């Protein structure tokens, strides 16, 4: 479960943004999240959809305890991300599209490192590792340096790293950025598998086709504010047969006007 209640996250503008503030800025403050509330339920995929700069990454970083909210409350698996950040992180798997790996380690070493950081018992680690490596077909390159692997192989290592500790909540921040169709598909499959295992999944993207593939609940974010929050089914039903992209653009336009 992820609970986001009245989340506000602002930054002080610097450099050019300070000289030329955007429309939504207040003074020299940029609001990446401006009173955002939503809940992600276990066994469902929550998609955070929004154009670049909407505030998706910031919200996910707050959920992952990497940033502190300016105000509001965020709870991950029941743990407050500020006062009980460590417990929140222990329940969390975090995968972003921009994240690379340690090129000089092998997949075995890397996955072991994250398992150790999560304090996994050796027998639990072995079982988990064998199951994941088997599922993703990683054994053949498990002892090769990551720097020498193909991007598809690297992505599989990233997935293994994200779920090795069997987290209750998984955060995906634009995880398919820059990936080819086949590798993107492996991420989509991972998201589906997490859902079927009863995990809470939050998934940010600006790619419509991905949303229609996996989304249960949808939030459309623009300039730090939610423009839509509801089930994906309700959103598409309201489109009257129009493509999802059309509905997304219409929602953004209505907000601007």
């Amino acid at each position, binding site marked *: 479960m992820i609970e986001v209640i009245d989340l506000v996250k602002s930054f002080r503008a610097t450099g050019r943004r300070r000289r030329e503030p955007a429309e939504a800025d207040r003074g020299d403050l940029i609001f990446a999240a401006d009173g955002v509330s939503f809940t992600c339920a276990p066994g469902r995929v929550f998609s955070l959809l929004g154009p670049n700069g909407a505030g998706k990454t910031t919200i996910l*970083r707050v959920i*992952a*305890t*990497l940033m502190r909210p300016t105000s509001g409350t965020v709870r991950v698996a029941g743990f407050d991300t500020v006062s009980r950040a*460590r417990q929140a992180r222990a329940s969390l798997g*975090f995968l972003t599209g921009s994240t690379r*790996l340690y090129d*000089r*380690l092998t997949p075995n070493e890397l996955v072991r490192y994250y398992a150790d*950081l999560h304090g996994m018992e050796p027998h639990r680690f072995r079982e988990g590792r064998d199951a994941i490596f088997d599922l993703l077909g990683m054994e053949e390159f498990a002892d090769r340096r990551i720097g020498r692997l193909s991007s598809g192989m690297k992505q599989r290592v990233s997935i293994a790293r994200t779920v090795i500790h069997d987290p209750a909540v998984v955060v995906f921040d634009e995880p398919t950025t820059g990936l080819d169709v086949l590798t993107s598909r492996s991420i989509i499959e991972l998201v589906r598998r997490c859902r079927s295992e009863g995990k809470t999944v939050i998934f940010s993207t600006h790619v419509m086709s991905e949303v229609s593939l996996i989304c249960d609940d949808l939030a459309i974010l623009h300039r730090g504010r939610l423009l839509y929050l509801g089930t994906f089914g309700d959103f598409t039903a309201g489109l009257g047969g129009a493509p999802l992209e059309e509905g997304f653009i219409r929602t953004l336009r209505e907000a601007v006007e």
Partner: protein
Amino acid sequence: MSTSSIVFRKELKDTLRDRRTLITMILFPLLLFPVMMSLSSSFIVSHEVEALARTLRIGVLQGGGASGFASLAGGEEGVEVVPVADAEEGRNLVLADSLDALVAFEEGFDSTVAALGSTGVLVYMKETEDRRIEAGRVLELLDLYDEELREERFRTLGLDPSVCFVLSVETVNLATTQERLADVVGGILPYMFVIFCFMGSMYPAIDLAAGEKERGTLETLLSSPVDRMQILVGKFGVVVLTGISSALVSLLGLYAGIRYASAVPQEFVDMVMSILEPSAILLLFSLLLPLTVFFAALLLSISFLARSFKEAQSYIGPLFPVIIIPAFIGLMPGMRLTAGTALVPILNVSLATRAIIAGKVPAGAMALVYASLAVYAAAALVLCSRIFGRERAIFR
């Protein structure tokens, strides 16, 4: 296993697999001393051999006689005497490197000598460092000629030439080898150690902070259930270890260079061997450790502020002179460890190391050195942990 040690072990493994780090941390400091010593000693030896064997062309301006000099010099092996008629012409020949020296005797030389007077001789030559040996050979010839003239004069007067020597001065140097070489070697060695501590820490600090930010792996690391301080301690431990190892490896290189490079003066060998005593090494590293902690915290702080490996490099590059200048000032003759210099970071380590090498460790000033190093290291650590705790630094 504690979380910091998990991070430490991983970062160490990662660092030791990085070719760049290995080159700056191990290969360079290990090879620098042996290569420098064997190259410089072979250059010095070959230069000496060449300078001694070369035929000297000495122009002689016999204004008023002094024909004895030309025949004396001409009789020496490896000397060619060129009679010169005009001082201006002779000087030009020296300037054009056609002559090694012009020896110009004063007008009326022979008559002044015959009248038991004292007369002069002007020697024109280019006295540069690499002509030092040739200049010495010319002056030696003049000394010989002077001696010849003096003996002749004494004979004429019916005296024994030894009557003019009243005081026979002989010095016995009681300074130990350590004391004699402390200023030279004692200045250079700490300078090298300080630089290696810095260089050894540099690449790991950049890679483990800015490199990790650039790769985006820092975000995943920070989303694991580990306190930031534990991550920092693990990373910091690796940076300190590489810095100290780098200095240690350079010491090994120095030892190997001394042992196996030929033509190293025996005094120098004795000197370095006396430094390599366990107690001196321990004392040396007890100074380098807090200094490396200071460097590591400073480098990690800068590196965490940078967005990428390259940006960190461009911030850290200008730091080099800042590190080198105080270390270099420590090389200057006359610089001593005092209550004032003991408080200047880097310079204090440089001077304290010099004092250790000279075998004279002033207890009060040393205590000040340790205390100030501890304060600087602690301040840098606090700065580093503050920066690492700041969202704006991590997500720049």
